[in-house]
């Protein structure tokens, strides 16, 4: 096992720069998520770590060893692909044994390793089946099995769950977390799914357009998004954004947008932004029906069992709020929303200015 350090990584395809100067490190045994919308360069980073793609500039360390110029074979990493990429002409056993055979291990050693991995993943019953006779979930397990048989230094997962249906995906998510606990190997996991990222990761690296937007724990990204991109990318339903201006009055700060005025209390850190246009962000769960400053009419109510999601039309645009499951309102009715001012985020020119939970 080893940690991973990436320094000043750059990569272009022709004139198209996909990764612009990225540095991060993953400590030994961590579960690190590369998260971002499609086309943000996350898969390219993973392929560069694996050695499948050459980088233009930068260094890659596994443990203390620079591996940037080594072939995939010499890097001792294992990778699980989005499409599983099982060898169709080999059965499950042969698929899992392939990497060990290439490394010239003895037959007994191969057998014991394959069977151990099969037991761990509960795929012992179909070791002699070809991939096409397996269901999506089973193929996924085989693909993971193929990766774990040779106990590599580093696991790379490229959107491994995106081809599974919703139910299977949540089961596999739990199993992956369990597997990581059992094996303790460092994992770099690429996904565009924020639920996977939030539930699996110790550390999330959020990317957009080949640039790191924020690095942190799932909680940090959720509660202290460093910019507008992070704030809107993380969280479902999406954070509400309201454009307005900051005003100071007798030592207190106010946010004003149309007919809406929110009292932010005495905030000296915000005084220098007084008079400027800012964007206020507030997550739906911080807005609940009650006596508050935001008024409008209920457009749609989504009942999802554990809670209700309210879409409220106001004169400052559509606002999304959450209500407890026993909420009785109906579409078309007027509603007023209370907000927790401690959960407010303010962004100035796209960058978060300290306020709310951080204050």
């Amino acid at each position: 096992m080893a940690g991973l350090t990436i320094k000043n990584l750059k990569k272009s395809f022709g004139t198209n720069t996909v990764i612009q100067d990225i540095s991060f490190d993953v400590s030994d045994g961590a579960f690190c998520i590369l998260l971002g919308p499609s086309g943000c360069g996350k898969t390219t980073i993973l392929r560069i770590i694996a050695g499948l793609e050459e980088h233009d500039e930068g260094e890659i360390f596994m443990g203390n060893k620079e591996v940037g110029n080594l072939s995939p074979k010499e890097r001792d990493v294992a990778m699980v692909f989005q499409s599983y990429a099982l060898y169709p002409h080999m059965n499950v056993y042969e698929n899992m044994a392939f990497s060990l055979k290439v490394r010239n291990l003895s037959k007994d050693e191969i057998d014991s390793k394959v069977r151990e991995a099969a037991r761990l993943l509960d795929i012992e019953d179909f070791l002699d089946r070809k991939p096409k006779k397996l269901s999506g979930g089973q193929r996924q397990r085989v693909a993971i099995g193929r990766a774990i048989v040779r106990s590599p230094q580093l696991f790379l997962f490229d959107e491994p769950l995106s081809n599974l249906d919703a139910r299977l995906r949540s089961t596999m998510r739990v199993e992956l977390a369990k597997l990581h606990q059992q094996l303790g190997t460092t994992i770099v996991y690429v996904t565009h799914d924020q639920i996977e990222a939030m539930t699996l990761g110790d550390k999330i690296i959020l990317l957009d357009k080949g640039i790191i937007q924020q690095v942190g724990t799932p909680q940090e990204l959720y509660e202290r998004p460093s910019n507008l991109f992070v704030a809107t990318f993380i969280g479902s339903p999406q954070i509400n954004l309201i454009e307005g201006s900051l005003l100071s009055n007798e030592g207190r700060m106010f946010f004003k947008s149309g007919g809406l005025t929110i009292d932010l209390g005495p905030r000296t850190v915000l005084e220098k932004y007084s008079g400027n246009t800012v964007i206020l962000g507030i997550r739906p769960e911080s807005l609940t029906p009650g006596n508050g400053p935001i008024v409008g009419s209920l457009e749609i109510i989504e009942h999802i069992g554990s809670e209700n999601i309210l879409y409220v039309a106001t004169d400052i645009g559509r606002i999304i709020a959450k209500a407890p499951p026993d909420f009785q309102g109906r579409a078309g009715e007027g509603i007023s929303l209370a907000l927790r001012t401690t959960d407010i985020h303010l962004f100035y020119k796209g960058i978060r200015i300290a306020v709310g939970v951080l204050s």
Partner: protein
Amino acid sequence: MKPSKLLFYGIIFIIIFLSLLPFIWFVHTSLKTEGEVTAIPPKLVPSGSLNFYRSAITDYNLLHYVRNSVIVAGATTCVTLFISVFAAYALARLRLKYKGLIMGSLLLVSMFPQISIAGPVWKILQALGWLNSYQGLIIPYVTLTLPLGVWILTSFFNELPKELEDAARIDGCTRIQALYKIVIPLAAPGVFTAAILVFIYAWNEFFFALLIMTQQKFQTLPIGIALFQGQYTLPWGEIAAASTVATVPLVVVVFLFQKRIVSGLSAGAIKG
């Protein structure tokens, strides 16, 4: 059976019969006796004599031509496939500039009428001293069949998911190992298809063989059979027997490999 169905199968039967008629005719003739070949009215059921086969082998040296054809067609197939596999893999996988141009040129070259290149080919072979030698026929055949091999294999390689090679390389293969352990076994239908087509071409080719192989020692089957005919003799029976000998191996090879030419071998590699 409905009249429309009857018509459908009737037409199919007629087409198949007309295509097979020459084949049936010479197999039929090869099994007759000397007298039966020219008998009027013609005999519908031959007596099953193998005399023509015997005399084709002893008097006309049939097996010598078979041997030459096997050498030339076999070597052509091996060399063409070997080059095609690497060329097609590079064309299918590498980020090459002008890929379309290369593929287009290959197609263009394969469309030249043979007669237009016969002169230059002959001159080159003469300069090399390769007229009347196996390589003198194999090399032109390889150049003529390469476009076919490369086109077939490129399309097969293109259809194989690239992730399979990535997976193989992660599993510890070099690029070459990934090619022969993963890609070629999966492209086997394509490799066999190309092999059969190249072999058939080299086995049947007449024009270049006639031009290049003027000594009996190196002549291939099509030339050999054509030269059975003497100035005053036309040994129909022996020609029919030799034609059967030339055709049956091809039919057998195609039937044998037909099982391998099944698509969908890569099903299950990726989702779906």
